């Protein structure tokens, strides 16, 4: 096993950290207050190519793997930023890359790599189908050389900041299916024209963090058959591989958050003097921080393994799920240790702890709830009875 430093990965981390230094805590705090999108930060990431790393070089990307993509997102969150504003531009194209036709890939990937086209919205969740994806009701009917799609999606992030959207819709009614994981299909939707024609309406949802998530109402949306990605009816299978990538990257963001929390907590606890000595001199304060640090290191190893499996084309379902599970828990523990170490000041927005606290909490619940990850491990790895 080789744990030696990789200079190229160090160079990537340093470069991203330097870019992030131009967007300090106050930048993110201001956006948090106004609910605005970090447009200039995302533009800088795009300009320097950081969002195109997973796209192969033949389509204009850097042809790197999840190890590097994860390092980039980790550094953003470690610097106090919120990578979720842009992370989907990295990996949403994965479904297109893996299951799209050559024609689709040549048409879209170079423009996605350059940032000219933003593909950072992925519409799966519906009001009546969250954890149970196979229950989605948004229906796509074939009509000549197009599909007509009608339905409703919820919690669709960045739809207002995306030119294209991947959409999971039903092409066979649920009751007609023996295997409920079939009958769903993936479509690539041009949001700009769809909104203009009134076939798609996007309504923002304010949530506990600055997340730009929305409700998407779809009414007789016409999508050419040329924009069906992969095989009709195989959509659920097509997106699962992308989910593994997403989980590994979200784990990386949690690790970045966790590092921010432990670094801030350790610094504050060393400087804040109460009862004549730094608060960090008390084991009640320092142990939770040290424990969170150890948990983060463990989660980081799991993330590295999952990324390595994915990047070398191996199956990585259990590892990707465990990485997301452990990283989100470790970061949440770090968040609480950091908030506790700050006393009352942790709740003051000027200290940024409460903002990061809200941001990292999401990662336990979304993009997939940790409960569902445990259910997966119990059933598919430990071969216990299916619990749901």
């Amino acid at each position, binding site marked *: 096993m080789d744990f030696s*430093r990789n*200079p*190229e990965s160090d*160079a*990537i981390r*340093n*470069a991203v950290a*330097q*870019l992030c230094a131009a967007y300090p805590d106050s930048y993110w705090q201001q956006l948090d207050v106004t609910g605005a999108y970090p447009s200039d930060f995302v533009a800088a990431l795009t300009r*320097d*190519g*950081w969002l*195109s*790393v997973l796209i192969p070089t033949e389509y204009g990307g*850097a042809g790197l793997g999840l190890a590097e993509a994860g390092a980039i997102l980790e550094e953003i969150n470690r610097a106090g930023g919120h990578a979720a504003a842009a992370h989907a531009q990295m990996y949403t194209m994965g479904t297109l890359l893996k299951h799209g036709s050559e024609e689709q890939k040549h048409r879209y990937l170079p423009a996605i790599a350059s940032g000219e086209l933003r593909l950072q919205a992925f519409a799966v969740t519906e009001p009546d189908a969250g954890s149970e994806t196979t229950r989605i009701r948004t229906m796509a009917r074939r009509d000549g050389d197009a599909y007509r799609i009608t339905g409703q999606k919820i919690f669709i992030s960045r739809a207002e900041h995306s030119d294209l959207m991947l959409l999971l819709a039903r092409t066979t009614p649920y009751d007609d299916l023996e295997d409920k994981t079939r009958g769903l299909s993936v479509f690539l939707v041009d949001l700009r024209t769809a909104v203009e024609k009134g076939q798609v309406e996007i309504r923002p949802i304010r949530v506990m963090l600055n997340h730009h998530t929305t409700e998407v109402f779809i009414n007789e949306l016409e999508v050419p058959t040329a924009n069906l990605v992969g095989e009709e009816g195989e959509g659920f299978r097509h997106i699962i591989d992308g989910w593994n990538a997403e989980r590994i990257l979200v784990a990386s963001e949690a690790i970045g958050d966790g590092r921010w929390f432990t670094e801030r907590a350790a*610094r*504050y606890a060393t*400087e804040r*003097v109460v009862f004549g000595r730094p608060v960090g001199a008390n084991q009640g304060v320092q142990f939770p921080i040290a424990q969170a640090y150890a948990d983060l290191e463990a989660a980081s190893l799991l993330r590295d393994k999952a990324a390595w499996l994915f990047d070398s084309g191996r199956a990585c379902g259990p590892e990707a799920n465990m990485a997301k599970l452990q990283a989100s828990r470790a970061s949440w523990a770090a968040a609480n240790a950091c908030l506790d170490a700050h006393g009352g*000041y942790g709740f003051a927005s*000027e200290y940024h702890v409460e903002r990061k606290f809200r941001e990292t909490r999401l990662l336990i619940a979304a993009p997939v709830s940790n409960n569902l990850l445990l259910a997966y491990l119990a059933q598919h790895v430990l071969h216990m009875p299916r619990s749901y």
Partner: protein
Amino acid sequence: MRIVVLVKPVPDTTGQERLGPDLRVDRAAVPAVVNANDEYALEAALKLVEAAGEGEVTILAMAPAAAPETLRKALAMGAQRAVLISDPSLAGSDTLSTVRVLAAGLRRLEYDLVLAGADTSDGGAGVVPAGVAVSVGLPYLSYASKIEPGAGRVLVHRLSPSGYDVIEAALPALVVATQALGEPRYPSLRGIMAARSKEIITWSLADLELGDTPVGGAAATTDVVSVRQPATRAATRVVREPATVAAAQVVEFLAERRLI
């Protein structure tokens, strides 16, 4: 415009430096980075080439064999190639030896301008650029806050205690860069990817026409006699709270000590 930049890989000073039994920094045990002042020189060189619309930047370094990875970072910033002079017998070189080796390296290269950093974060002597200029016979223009190449000449603003002197010399010349020339860029992703395939030429001593000029540890005219740690400072209290809170804390601190 062909520019050579002298670059030294130095121990990463953010880490704990470790000394070997010879009382010198154990370079194998400490991660190396590009000397910060050399990054300013490299940035200036890249800007000059960009402004000229043509030309190339070559990095010249004398360093242990593990240095290519450090030089990759300089290549990722945008230099076209690197030349690494590395030889086991160069271990323990002093500044005089370094001057001789770099000068011999320069004689093998074609250039209009040589740029160097003001000093290094490990040795700190600051005499190598001047030595190299004298050795090769190049005009020496130090402490540049501005570099303006013209036809066959270069004009430099040289920082002085009272402002700056405007000095000019014929090319080729050696100019010492300062931080006033502008912050070094960070490598972009494209730069990092491009650096993968850039050439790092390695020369050993045998590749240099040094004749019987003595170089390396054996020829060092200086010796490390003893080392000691600077005294650690007493505990420092840092106030990082926002100004509204911090001001009161500073006032309280001073008042407690009857300083105000």
